[in-house]
């Protein structure tokens, strides 16, 4: 080709160096911090203290309740958003009057900034005058402390999160639905399959790869979600929504314990990493099955 070997590196060089400087090195540094007793005001003057941070975190029951909260939050948001997104995509896939307008309306939550989501949900969840309690009172259930009652905090936060993210699933599934080969569907209907069973045997398998990847992304995003939880409940009421990420932030910027925050962050990263590894190994197995 007569092209020099370094040509590709001229194109990817800037991005690669950038990722090394602002992602890899901070990550390694965070890893290093996790073995020190660094403090917020003088982050670089921490002493090496070995595994002390990890030992302290893993010996504290607070970590396990935070881990459980993270898993619970992630599970509810992923299941909720995937189901709602799937239902919305299927409902809007066929022609109906006003379809374009409805699709735009259903896309809106995804474009709304997290801070705006928090402002409006905070107001809707308001104990005395929020619309949520106007509704519950009209239904005769009475006022609920959506953001005050520890048993409702998780519901309040996951509901707002699902509202914000389900359009992503809907749009991705909608794109996949439009690529279902028409002949496949028709063929199964000629065979006498009714709509529902043709849906089950033709459409759902076609959608599965998309749903799997979208669920993985949604899981990873949920594990690291910050602002909706932090601003809506701050991890409360009484720790009900205190996920690992919220904990990391509080340790670092409220307790100034950078070392411990970093160790906690590494443990959170391990959680995302294990989800991804499990996903890819399951995916490989499925891919094998499908080719057989």
């Amino acid at each position: 080709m007569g092209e020099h070997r370094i040509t590709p590196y001229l194109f990817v060089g800037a991005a690669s160096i950038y990722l090394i400087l602002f992602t890899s090195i901070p990550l390694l540094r965070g890893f290093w911090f996790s073995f020190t007793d660094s403090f917020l005001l003088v982050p670089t003057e921490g002493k090496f203290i070995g595994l002390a941070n990890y030992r302290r975190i893993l010996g504290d029951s607070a970590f396990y309740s935070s881990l459980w909260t993270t898993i619970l939050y992630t599970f509810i948001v992923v299941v909720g958003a995937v189901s709602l997104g799937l239902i919305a995509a299927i409902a809007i896939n066929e022609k109906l009057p006003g379809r374009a307008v409805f699709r735009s309306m259903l896309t809106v939550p995804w474009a709304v900034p997290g801070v705006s989501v928090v402002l409006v949900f905070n107001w809707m969840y308001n104990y005395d005058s929020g619309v949520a309690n106007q509704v519950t009172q009209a239904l005769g259930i009475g006022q609920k402390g959506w953001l005050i009652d520890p048993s409702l905090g998780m519901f309040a936060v996951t509901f707002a999160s699902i509202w914000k993210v389900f359009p992503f699933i809907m749009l991705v599934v909608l794109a996949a639905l439009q690529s279902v080969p028409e002949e496949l569907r028709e063929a199964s209907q000629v065979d006498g399959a009714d709509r529902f069973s043709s849906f089950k045997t033709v459409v759902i398998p076609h959608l599965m790869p998309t749903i799997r990847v979208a669920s993985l992304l949604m899981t990873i995003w949920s594990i690291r979600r910050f602002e909706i939880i932090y601003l809506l409940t701050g991890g409360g009421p009484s720790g009900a929504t205190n996920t690992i990420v919220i904990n990391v932030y509080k340790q670092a910027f409220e307790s100034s314990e950078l070392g411990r925050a970093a160790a906690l962050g590494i443990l959170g990263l391990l959680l995302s990493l294990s989800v991804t590894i499990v996903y890819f190994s399951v995916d490989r197995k499925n891919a094998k099955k499908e080719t057989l």
Partner: protein
Amino acid sequence: MKRNIPVKILRWIFVFLLASFAIFPIYWMYNTSLTPLGGLFEGQNLIPPVQNSLEIFNVFFTEVPIWRWLRNSAVVALGTTISSLAMAILAAYGLSRFRFFGKGILGFALFATQMLPEALLIVPMYALFMGLGLLDGYTGLVLANTAFVMPVAVWIIKSAMDGIPYEIEEAARVDGTRRLAMLTQIMIPLTAPSIAAASVIVFFDGWNDFLFASTFVTSSEKWLATVGLASFLGEFVTPLATVFSAALVFTIPPIVFFLIMQRQIISGLTSGSVKG
């Protein structure tokens, strides 16, 4: 396909309810911004008492410095867009058109950034920017946001470039066109819709950023809109109508741009993420 009318009507009603659910919180922001203080606490009406929607723009004449906040946000968002796209377009071209040592590692690194919690990286980034004297300024914010969103832009643009046949470039190469010229004169124009979609995503990532903005910037005159708006939470001085007018003025631009670009954004995200 013949289907009975009642099923169709039921489905329409179902979709209508779903769409109303999706839009309701935004409608409620709008409703609240047009409801005077008294009306809020004795049960807010479903229809706001003030019918003139343009009243939300009165927020620009209140003591809330929304104008300054929006300008600050726009500066950070624009900086993030320029730095992300410049690197992403080059990298996307390199990944799409060459085989080279380290390609797999780079591809993995781009995906892996999606896994990193900002809350973990913010600690070493804080230390780094403190050392560089970049705290309490916008450069640090642009650098931090770019690190997280530039990979997404690479994904989207690379998948668009993958769809452009090699022959187009081969034909151009005969004319002796150099690689960089090929990128600027052929690939960028051909992938313009995806680049536009990536720009929208990147711009509003900077616009929406709260975590970095609230941690790295301390003086209130440099606040971004996200931090300014969040400061209203738990504060009971500013009238809610003003708070939500400000929130709306901040929320409308991303909604408008995402809706305009939805087709390109989705095709970019799906091909980029589904094919990995």
